[in-house]
């Protein structure tokens, strides 16, 4: 069905013929007056969270429930020779035990799962874990990326690379790629001819950028509670995708998915690392089956930091060239990164997709080390890629003698982001930034930097939702999505209330249960663009059901009945008008219930990347090397925001996590033992309240017409450019490039010293 759809932003729209799926309402028009969508709505589960009543999976307590824990390898590389569980099994309170790495199998990182125990109290499990006897044959190992690339380095995989994590499957990634020692790759990509591009360039810059391994550090750890009822398995999981947990458990236990129920009522953060039941979840379900009792297995903080995922490190060599008039001509990026026993270290997303560059050559290598496997982490590859790319853009601008923002504008194909740059520049007073560098204290300098964000419109078909209208005028929505803390529960309610024309309190929302209609996994910033159009479609069709009931009463065709703004009316007959409540009384006792699938994305709509721009203002003490981020201005688009309040929260969160990555976070492995030296939050520093800058967020509404609610995601783009903007601000302040994250005092002082010895412009 072809519809005329207005698309655009910033008051400028064009009408396009867009193909809309049958049964799907046309995308909301820019002229639409919303009653609730886009306003600041406190989240519906706020009271449950603020009162302590919210029951997270880690809070679940069942009658007779046992507690389980995992024994982990102290060695970074070893062969397990033997495991004796008997001494543990005979400990008081122990009900079940399980081997996770069989004798003869290999240990590839310190912290790998070896065995698991279930007992009747948390402390008794700890006692029993200590009684397990394991004989290891230690092997040589390597944890540093440079050491791992040396020709004689110990091999992490001497056979096939095999390791599964949510960033993908190493085997899958390794297909068709060469592996030499611990180095897999390159994965090549690009376009044009970089060498020709460099020849055309008037200026060329070249540098190597280093980023650290970052740990997700979600406050609720990984784990689940497993309960067997005969052949049926109930699971309360801390997960970003309840259906993925269901399907993986079905595969692990060779039982139909229909016999597994996965519940995630409340969830204490994931940031990309919580997909599937993983080893610990399957272990819990096995222990529960053996013990004939429910089992709770949640990791402790050290396990969480060691074994559940991380953002890979990167060493990014970039060479880039531009012409005198400020056009980017060529960019060559070679990335080596380590995701431990996993891959997923590519960083080329920003280089490929932010600026126009006719000649691009990219070579990405995964370096295996004896360290915990990487997992998807909020915009995989992008914060590290943006850091290197945006530092390169600043370096080129400097060499061209051009304002770095002007240089970006000349090369940015995204009209939305160019507008975002303009808005942000005004708010941060970009034009006066050079004059603000010096302060009264000669040791203290200030700087302003910018970074660009992009993300992808990841929404698509798959999800399903049921909307029920009851005879009393109330509405119910069932949708198997989970709320990680992003506000998806509230998003579902807002979209339904908006489409139905009801106040929020008339709409009940049930989510977080795999017995409900299929919901999307929450990754890739796709929850809202997947769910919101599904909810609106089901609500739209439920309204048609109500219209049909009124049409029957009025003995007119249903097509001539409209449901809008809380009234049911017949076209051309003002006498035929019912309030929502009156109309709902016409429904049968079952009300009207519609289950709808999300439509395909509309063909012919505005295909584009999500854009964003962040500006940071910092103060740097050149004597101590301390950086304080004073202010961040963040201008983003996420199509049309469903809830301005929770969207603001999520952007603030992306910025604070990005700041934390830029300045503090750094996983440290001991080269002598291979063990994690900072496995808890007093040594692995994450940003606290005193580290927070003043944050101003601006949302630019964009009507793409891709889906009926004009939704895209914001979780990931909000954290993509923060470290880049901060690093560029520090560089601006001290007059020397920052090429390494985190920007510790040591990094700052080294950069200041290097600039001084070169007679830099500081």
């Amino acid at each position, binding site marked *: 069905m072809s519809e005329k759809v207005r698309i655009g932003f910033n008051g400028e729209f064009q009408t396009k013929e867009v193909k809309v799926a049958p049964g799907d309402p046309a995308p909301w028009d820019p002229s639409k007056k919303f009653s609730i969508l886009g306003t600041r709505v*406190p*989240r519906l*589960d*706020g*009271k449950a*969270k*603020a*009162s*302590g*009543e*919210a*029951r*997270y999976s*880690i*809070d679940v*307590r069942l009658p007779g429930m046992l507690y389980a824990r995992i024994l982990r390898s102290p060695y970074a590389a070893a062969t397990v020779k033997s495991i004796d569980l008997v001494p543990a099994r005979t*400990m*008081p*309170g122990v009900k079940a035990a399980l081997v996770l790495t069989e004798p003869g199998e290999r240990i590839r990182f310190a912290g790998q799962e070896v065995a698991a125990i279930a007992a*009747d*109290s*948390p*402390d008794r499990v700890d*006692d029993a874990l200590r009684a397990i006897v394991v004989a290891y044959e230690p092997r040589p190992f390597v944890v540093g990326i440079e050491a791992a690339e040396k020709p004689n380095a110990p091999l992490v995989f001497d056979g096939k690379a095999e390791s599964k994590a949510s960033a993908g499957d190493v085997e899958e990634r390794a297909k068709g790629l060469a592996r030499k020692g611990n180095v897999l790759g390159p994965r090549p990509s690009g376009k044009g001819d970089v060498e020709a591009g460099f020849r055309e360039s008037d200026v060329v810059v070249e540098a190597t950028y280093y980023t650290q391994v970052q740990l997700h*550090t*979600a*406050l*609720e750890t990984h784990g689940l509670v497993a309960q067997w009822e005969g052949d049926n398995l109930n699971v309360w999981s801390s997960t970003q995708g309840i259906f993925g947990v269901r399907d993986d458990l079905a595969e692990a236990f060779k039982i139909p998915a229909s016999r597994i129920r996965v519940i995630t009522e*409340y*969830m*204490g*953060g994931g*940031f990309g690392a919580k997909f599937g039941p993983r080893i610990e979840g399957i272990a819990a379900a096995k222990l529960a089956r053996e013990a004939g009792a429910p089992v709770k297995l949640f990791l402790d*903080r050290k396990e969480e930091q060691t074994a559940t995922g991380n953002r890979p490190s990167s060493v990014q060599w970039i060479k880039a060239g531009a012409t005198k008039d400020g056009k980017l001509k060529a960019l060559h990026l070679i990335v080596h990164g380590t995701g431990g026993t996993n891959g997923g270290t590519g960083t080329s997303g920003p280089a490929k997709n932010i600026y126009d560059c006719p000649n691009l050559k990219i070579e990405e290598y995964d370096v295996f080390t004896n360290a915990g496997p990487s997992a998807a982490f909020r915009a995989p590859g992008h914060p590290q890629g943006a850091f290197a790319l945006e530092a390169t853009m600043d370096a080129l601008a400097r060499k061209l003698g051009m304002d770095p923002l002007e240089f970006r504008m000349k090369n940015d194909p995204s009209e939305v982001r160019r507008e975002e740059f303009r808005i942000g520049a005004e708010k941060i007073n970009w034009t006066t930034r050079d004059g603000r560098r010096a302060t009264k204290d000669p040791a203290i300098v200030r700087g302003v930097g910018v970074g660009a964000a992009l993300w992808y419109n990841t929404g698509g078909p798959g999800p399903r939702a049921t909307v029920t209208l009851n005879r009393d005028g109330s509405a119910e929505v069932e949708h198997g999505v989970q709320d*990680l*803390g*992003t*506000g998806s529960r509230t998003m579902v309610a807002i979209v339904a209330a908006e489409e139905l024309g009801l106040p929020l309190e008339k709409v009940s929302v049930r989510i977080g249960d795999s017995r409900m209609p299929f919901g999307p996994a929450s990754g890739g910033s796709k929850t809202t663009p997947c769910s919101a159009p599904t909810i609106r479609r089901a609500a739209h069709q439920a309204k048609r059901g109500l219209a049909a009931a009124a049409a029957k009463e009025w003995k007119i065709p249903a097509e001539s009945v409209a449901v809008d703004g809380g009234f049911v009316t017949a076209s051309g007959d003002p006498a035929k008008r019912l309030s929502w409540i009156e109309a709902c009384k016409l429904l049968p006792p079952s009300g009207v219930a519609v289950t709808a699938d999300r439509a395909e994305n509309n063909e012919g709509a505005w295909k584009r990347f999500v854009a964003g721009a962040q500006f940071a203002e910092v103060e740097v003490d050149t004597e101590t090397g301390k950086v304080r981020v*004073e*202010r961040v201005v963040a201008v983003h688009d996420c199509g049309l925001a469903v809830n301005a*309040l*929770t969207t603001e*929260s*999520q952007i*603030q*969160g992306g*910025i604070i*996590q990005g700041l934390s990555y830029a300045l503090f976070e750094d996983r440290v492995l001991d080269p002598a033992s291979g063990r994690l030296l900072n496995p*808890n*939050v*007093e040594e692995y520093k*994450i*940003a*606290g*309240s*005193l580290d*927070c*800058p*003043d*944050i101003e967020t601006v949302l630019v509404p964009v009507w793409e017409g891709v889906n009926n609610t004009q939704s895209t995601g914001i979780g990931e783009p909000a954290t993509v450019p923060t470290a880049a903007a901060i690093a560029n601000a520090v560089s601006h302040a001290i007059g020397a490039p920052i090429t390494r994250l985190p920007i510790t005092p040591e990094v700052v002082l080294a950069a200041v010293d290097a600039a001084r010895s070169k007679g830099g412009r500081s």
Partner: protein
Amino acid sequence: MSDGDENRGGFTRRDLVRGTLVGAIAAGTGAKVAKAETGSVGPGPAPLELKVNGAVHKLSIEPRVTLVGALRDRLGLTGTKSVCGRGACGACTVLVDGTAVCSCLTLAHEVAGREITTIEGLAADGRLSPIQQAFVEADALQCGFCTSGMIMSCKVLLDRNPKPNRGQIRAAVAGNLCRCGTYPHVVDAVERVAGIRTADGELAPDLRLSTLDSRLFSNDPRVASATLAALEMDGEEA
């Protein structure tokens, strides 16, 4: 509130075996040591009265059990969260006689008979306390896992200083780590309770023209001490 204590009526042979295994320093006797004589209890389960949110719970708990362990696993008060297990993150913050403590660093037996307040004890008759309500309205919570501890820290701040400035608010929750990044909205929430911000998130009318404004709303935590005296005076007047 049910005790939630399933199995520990008295002392059993199992506990004895267990005591000898874990309580190496107890010289392997494993027998309950009389509290009066030594000032110590254990290593086996020992009777304990915990006074939580006004209710007295009679428990039998091993001395090694932390307060957060007792609250969550024995009393079912799971609003208090455990994140780091070593006093570094503040998620487990509860009040003991009105003072904020990390319940992961506190043994249950240490606080026998003391007044313990958890997040579940702040709401009365299903109505949220002002600081809880402000957290909801300002969206000072995302995943909500740090929220209980954040709210307890903010409550202690407001009990002592009803009109804190932003630096003081930030300092008050400096020990509460949040991974979602709720800190800016936490500051907003406390300002609402303090009457510095209205429910719309705007500055309260009587404060808009205040000469203190520039310092009051300074982003810089270093202004905290400079304005402390003035603000505490404000607080007393209020």
